[in-house]
């Protein structure tokens, strides 16, 4: 389960950026709240992962300063990131479908 979470962490981050750009704090918070606190993603792991995704050109970080607020670094998907996310979703669906067939969960 640990490896599963680790392997899917990149997909989770990419998926959270699919709709719109977000900053690191928001990403960390959403992972907890959107998963009903089933998934815990320590922020000490989040930022290196964001930097790795940026180096891989799957996300793009940009400093944004909104009026009246401190500047923040927002991340958004690049076209390559969007393709990677689509591929990850396909793989994930196939994996879950296979799991359902093997365990019979889909017939419960």
């Amino acid at each position, binding site marked *: 389960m640990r490896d599963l979470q680790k392997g899917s962490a990149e997909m989770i981050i990419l998926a959270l950026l699919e709709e719109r750009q977000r900053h690191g*704090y928001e990403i960390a918070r959403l992972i907890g709240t959107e998963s009903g606190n089933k998934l815990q993603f320590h922020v000490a792991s989040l930022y290196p992962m964001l930097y790795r995704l940026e180096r891989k050109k799957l996300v793009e970080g940009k400093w944004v300063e909104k009026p009246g607020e401190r500047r923040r670094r927002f991340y958004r998907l690049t076209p390559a990131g969007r393709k990677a996310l689509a591929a990850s979703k396909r793989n994930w669906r196939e994996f879950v479908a296979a799991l359902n067939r093997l365990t019979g969960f889909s017939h419960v």
Partner: protein
Amino acid sequence: MSDLWENYVREHLPDLRVDPAREAEIVSELAQQLEQAYRDAILSGASEPEAIHQAQAQFNDWNKLAREIESAEQRVVDPPLPAKPWFGALHDLRYAARFFHRNPAFAAVAVITLAFGIGGNTAVFTMVDALVLHGLPYSEPDRLMAIDTTKSQQAYIEPWTSALDFFDLRDRTHAFSSIAGIGPVWNVILTGSGEAERLESLYVSASLFPMLGVNAALGRTFLSSEDRGAQPSNVVILSDGIWRRRFGASREILGRSLTIDGGVFTVIGVLPADFRYAGEPVAGTASAIDAWFPLSANPLTGSQRGLRFLKVVGRLNPGVSPQ
């Protein structure tokens, strides 16, 4: 408070084997994480010591964090830079070089570092041509330059400028024939006839449209008198798109009063159908802009130099080279 958290991160995070400017970015970002955690803890009712503790608990193994960041960065380690007078400028140029490397589509033309004596805290302006210059529907697009700024002792360049720095630059520059400021507008809602509608909007200085060589298809663009003064001018320019979609391309739109965010704004012009805002999206603003407001209508225009919220673009004077 943000400086306090930056100092805290610098004290705890081991030196990273990355470019100094990149390290400064990382420190700043990690400090934001801590500060936000602290603020949220306070809002949740935590005491000051509890909030500080919760924030500090965000990162408990700084050595591991440093190793993971270095691994993620996976970049060639630069040798220590000699302490020379042009150290800061070199930082700027290296930053710009990385920017261009990461954004090849931006067709970088030039990087110039100029020293201006503007204000007390802004010592160096680094001008980076960061627009896609060729093929833009503007007059002489290769003469347009995005102007980024950095404070003295600041290791990174920001694509933002304060209003006061913008005014100083506009009034004192000899390199540019015209300089325009562009600022975001948030949550502008058009009400009145028809359903309420959120408008993508920008505040712009009156100089923008003349600088781009763009005239209104209907009516006019902003006057310089609408760009300054204590009383904001309640005028608005619409895009061709919203003019056709929402107002049926009626020429009677000129002079009509629109209720926008509870205020009343008079329509003074409609932009050409082929006009598009080709600048970088401002703080998440869409590139398809529906409504344009004068810079003076932005209450932040009266803010201090510390608040940097404007994108600045300039047109080079004839004879001035970007190199």
